[in-house]
């Protein structure tokens, strides 16, 4: 920590010397008493000064928060002299809503991101700092500027504590009332009805009683109407492999941050819901980088997926790799791929066709972006014509995907995801492919 004198020190010296010299020159020694307080300040301040140290420890109150929550840190300071300390938190990322110290919140209270407090030598003091909520993602916080004001204010000792802490900001939770039912399931017990016939809950068919059938399966009502004993057959509930495919291509000329943010929000909600149904959920990110998380179950898998989603970054260059290098364990055969994308990048659309062609069950949640306003263009008529042509091309692209059995549901910011999921379910039902 760097030590420097405040303006009080030169002011005191100049006052004392100046008034003393003037008093002697003018023969009026009482004039020197004007600087008596400065002499007292110098005397007290210099006797209290010394080689003082300040140690600090930065801790996050909670390293996982939701969007809308404030990031709270506590800074524990260990001084070896008395005085007062100013602790100021420096937000190091441009994703903060407001990086200025002290933000007014609803209710009139001010949350401090800079606090001053008196400290006593040898006794630790705790400073509580907070920053306004950033957007979703993983952020590095914790750079704290400390300024120790030594006794009587002649000297200050300042420095930067660079212990950074990582805080994960989760998107706002979404409760889904509707889920996508995969067409292809695994053999493991789950909640999705299978096309097979075995023990289960959902009614499938009736057949004649045969050897080995359980008495519990006898359908007494149907048997009473016929002259033989009939048993009910049911569809077993099976689990599925769900792979969330995130589009992080940025060369599309739109507000990438908000559109990818929609995709991340939807992915977190879908992951939570499907994991709760004992499905295995995995993740593949295709765009600036190609990353994957192999499907798994349980709370730990939810944390892995969430951390991977929150770590989604936007890169100016796109990867040259495609899905071929993704290992089988990350993209299992017959898995249900849910793609979250604005469907603007041809490479991502091509990947969807490839997945469908290789036998995966594919559905798309199209994250809608805000198109540029044609009225603001230099030539509004030309811009309007370009927009119509662009919309027509996209309509053709959607039809091509629908022909291959890929259902698309459109989701706009501000709407609940259930609307998009309902649209996908409806299209999948109409496409004629049964889930059984």
């Amino acid at each position, binding site marked *: 920590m760097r030590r420097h004198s405040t303006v009080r020190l030169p002011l005191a010296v100049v006052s004392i010397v100046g008034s003393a010299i003037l008093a002697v020159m003018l023969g009026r020694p009482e004039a020197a008493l004007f600087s008596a307080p400065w002499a007292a300040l110098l005397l007290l301040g210099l006797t209290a000064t010394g080689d003082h140290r300040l140690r600090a420890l930065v801790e996050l109150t909670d390293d996982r928060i939701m969007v809308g929550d404030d990031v709270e840190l506590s800074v524990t300071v260990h001084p070896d002299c008395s005085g007062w300390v100013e602790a100021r938190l420096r937000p190091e990322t441009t994703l903060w809503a407001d990086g200025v110290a002290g933000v007014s919140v609803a209710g009139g209270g001010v949350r401090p991101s800079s606090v001053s407090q008196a400290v006593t030598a040898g006794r630790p003091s705790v400073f509580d700092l907070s920053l306004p909520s950033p957007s979703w993602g993983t952020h590095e916080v914790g750079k704290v500027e400390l300024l120790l004001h030594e006794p*009587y204010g002649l000297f200050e000792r300042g420095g930067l504590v660079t212990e950074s802490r990582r805080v994960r900001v989760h998107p706002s939770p979404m409760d889904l009332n509707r889920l996508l039912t995969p067409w292809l399931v695994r053999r493991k017990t789950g909640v999705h009805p299978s096309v097979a016939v075995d023990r289960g809950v959902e009614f499938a068919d009736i057949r004649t009683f045969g050897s080995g059938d359980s008495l519990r399966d006898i359908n007494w009502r149907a048997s009473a109407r016929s002259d033989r004993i009939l048993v009910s057959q049911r569809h077993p509930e099976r689990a599925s492999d769900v792979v969330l495919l995130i589009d992080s291509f940025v060369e599309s000329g739109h507000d990438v941050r908000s559109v990818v943010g929609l995709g991340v929000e939807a992915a977190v909600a879908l992951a939570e819901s499907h994991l709760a149904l004992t499905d295995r959920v995995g993740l593949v990110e295709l765009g600036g980088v190609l990353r994957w998380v192999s499907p798994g179950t349980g709370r730990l898998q939810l944390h892995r997926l969430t951390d991977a989603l929150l770590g989604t970054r936007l890169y100016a260059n796109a990867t040259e790799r495609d899905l071929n290098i993704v290992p089988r364990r990350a993209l299992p055969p017959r898995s249900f791929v849910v793609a979250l994308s604005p469907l603007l990048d041809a490479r991502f659309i091509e990947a969807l066709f490839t997945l469908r062609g290789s036998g995966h069950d594919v559905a798309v949640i199209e994250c809608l972006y805000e198109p540029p306003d044609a009225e603001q263009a230099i030539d509004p008529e030309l811009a309007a014509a370009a927009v119509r042509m662009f919309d027509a091309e996209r309509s053709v692209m959607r039809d091509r995907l629908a022909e291959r059995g890929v259902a698309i549901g459109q989701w706009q910011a501000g709407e609940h995801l259930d609307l998009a999921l309902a649209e996908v379910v409806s299209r999948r039902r109409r496409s004629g492919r049964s889930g059984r």
Partner: protein
Amino acid sequence: MTVSRSVSEPTTGRPMLARSGRAVLPLVAIGLAILVAIVISRAAKGFEPAVLRFEIGAVFLLGAGIAVQSEKLVAFATGPAIVGLLLGILDSDDVVWGSSLLAGCLWYLATEAALSSIELGDGLAVSASVVHRRSFEVASVVSLAAVIGVVSLAGASLAPDRSVLVQVLLLAFVLIGLVIAGRHLAATSGDNRAEEAH
């Protein structure tokens, strides 16, 4: 590691100095500076207009320093304050130890209030403990200044006022004190350089 919190500083519910409290500091600084001008100008006789001009200039510089949050400007205000005092003293036939000391203490309080209003600026949440500590320090300085004043008065009573002996003693006292302070600063700045090298 167990961290024990200061008993006098609860972690939550710590009283903070409200913004309205901090807004008082600039007003106190200006008020005290005006009081200094009044004290000095009342001690002067023939030079009263000139004294008043210098003191008003000092008040103006102090106020400007607070307004633009400049500590240097606040420090510069001491210059015209001292000059105004000297003009006032020159004009007086009596020995004005009391007025000098009073004006000096009031000007010190005004400067401290101005500098504190800049240090505890906007956006900084200030705890009441800081206010208590600073108040204690300022009170200590003023008390010691009063002691210095009494000692000086006692010393001057041993010799005729304005004698050469008093002046030489004064100058010697100041010079010795500055040498000691300088040596102490040099020693601590050496520690500072060693720390930077690390």
